[in-house]
């Protein structure tokens, strides 16, 4: 990757093994060119933040990675699989290893917290006993600090709690990669900070690699090992928080003011 990076951080060293490799990615909706020849690598164990204005195509990018949208052109390799070549059952297998935290949480309104968490377990046909399912549910809830909400409905929870439950549902499959879509947007600053620290804990505990979409600079400061700027459908600059915050480039500077 070209950019302003200096290899002062272990996470930008090119010899690290990449879990996601994207080359020359194009995606447009009609005349709206959203991604324009984007290149991106995610290395094992790192928290990489993708920073960009709203409407710049951040959500489109991670929805392509998880196979919810098809790219127009370019290649996307996730854990050494070319996602454009996978059929739907292979895609399902890949999705066990890649968690996705939706911006709007996407908790199922008609199900309790427990049923929400059991859903991916059951649907991915992970064969386990009832006790084992229960143990996994409780473990995931403890990880996010909300074991007492297990029998509540999502509508009874606050915004921050819903975000945690959504995170627990993502964690329950023990993914190797987590894609976070604006995890702190819409939360108050304190809750946002808590969620950010939770993301750090998860990275340490499970050694996950993550792409974090954000424009919340407080969250970025806490979680980022490396930051990539998405500008005009391309990754323009990359570096640590400190490196980008002293950048002379106006398009980068405006995020750090």
């Amino acid at each position, binding site marked *: 990757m070209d950019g302003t990076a200096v290899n002062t951080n272990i996470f930008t060293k090119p010899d690290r093994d990449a879990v996601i490799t994207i080359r020359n990615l194009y995606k447009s909706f009609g005349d709206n060119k959203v991604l324009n020849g984007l290149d991106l690598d995610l290395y094992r164990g790192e928290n990489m933040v993708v920073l960009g204005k709203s409407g710049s195509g951040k959500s489109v990018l991670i*929805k392509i990675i*998880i*196979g*919810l949208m098809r790219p127009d052109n370019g290649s996307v390799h996730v854990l050494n699989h070319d996602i454009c070549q996978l059929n*739907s059952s292979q895609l*399902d297998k890949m*999705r*066990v290893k890649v968690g*996705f935290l*939706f*911006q*709007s*949480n*996407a*908790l*199922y*309104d008609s199900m309790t917290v427990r049923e929400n968490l059991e*859903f*991916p377990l059951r*649907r*991915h*046909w992970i064969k386990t006993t009832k006790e084992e399912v229960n143990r996994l549910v409780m473990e995931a809830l403890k990880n996010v600090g909300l074991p007492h909400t297990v029998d509540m409905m999502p509508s009874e929870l606050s915004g921050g709690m819903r975000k945690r439950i959504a995170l627990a549902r993502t964690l329950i499959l023990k993914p190797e990669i987590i894609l976070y879509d604006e995890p702190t947007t819409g939360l108050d600053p304190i809750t946002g900070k808590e969620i950010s620290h939770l993301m750090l804990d998860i990275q340490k505990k499970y050694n996950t690699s993550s792409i974090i979409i954000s424009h919340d600079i407080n969250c970025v400061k806490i979680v980022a090992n490396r930051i990539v700027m998405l500008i005009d459908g391309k990754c323009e600059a990359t570096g640590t928080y400190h490196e980008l915050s002293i950048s002379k480039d106006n398009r980068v500077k405006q995020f750090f003011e």
Partner: protein
Amino acid sequence: MVKEIFIEIGLITRFAGRFFRELIKPQLEFSEFVRQCFFIGNKSLSLVGITAFIMGLVITIQSRPTLVEFGAEAWLPKMVSVSLVREIAPVITALICAGKIGSGIGAELGSMKVTEQIDAMYVSGTNPYKFLVVTRVMATTLMIPILAIMADGVSLYGGYLGANIHGIVSWDLYWNQVFDTLVFGDVLPSIIKTFFFGYVIGIIGSYKGFNSNRGTEGVGQSANSAVVISSLLVFIIDLLAVQITDVLNLN
């Protein structure tokens, strides 16, 4: 505008055809299907019952003077039962279900769409068409005929009370006349068409929900247009059904 209508018809047809392809794929979501059947019954049973009862009563009372004029008062049960069972009960049931069930499905799936719950299903290894659409369409296709048969019975009972307001028709006489009048050729086509009503209501509600625009007003719009389009289609199917029975000499 005309072009858009044809595009929409094409998209709906494709969506409706997909139902059959997904239906035969393995892994039936049985518990979700049962849950939907229960919801549909629970939601519309009382409204369908009350409306059918009132329709039976009113049609009978209103038909009476005309028949009296021709001295054919004794034909009241005959005439009323044919129009209730063949036309009024099935269509009323379908319209009520289009309003309650169709809009409900449109709003529910629409809000699932805009809050990314449908995407979340894909990510959780579930085909949302199979899990959400197939189960709901199967449920409407099964439940609306059942509700319509119930509406037949209730409206005929309303007819019995209506017939007894001015004259006296004994219980046995009324039902004997009704069952003498109604032949297989009346009842069967009227039940068969309700399966199509049910299918159309489920498909249109699901289609509108699945294709909701972003934002919450999109959800309201989906629910609304689901009702309009499926009500219209109910009448179109009814028109086709009467043509077909006419050709087959069943009228």
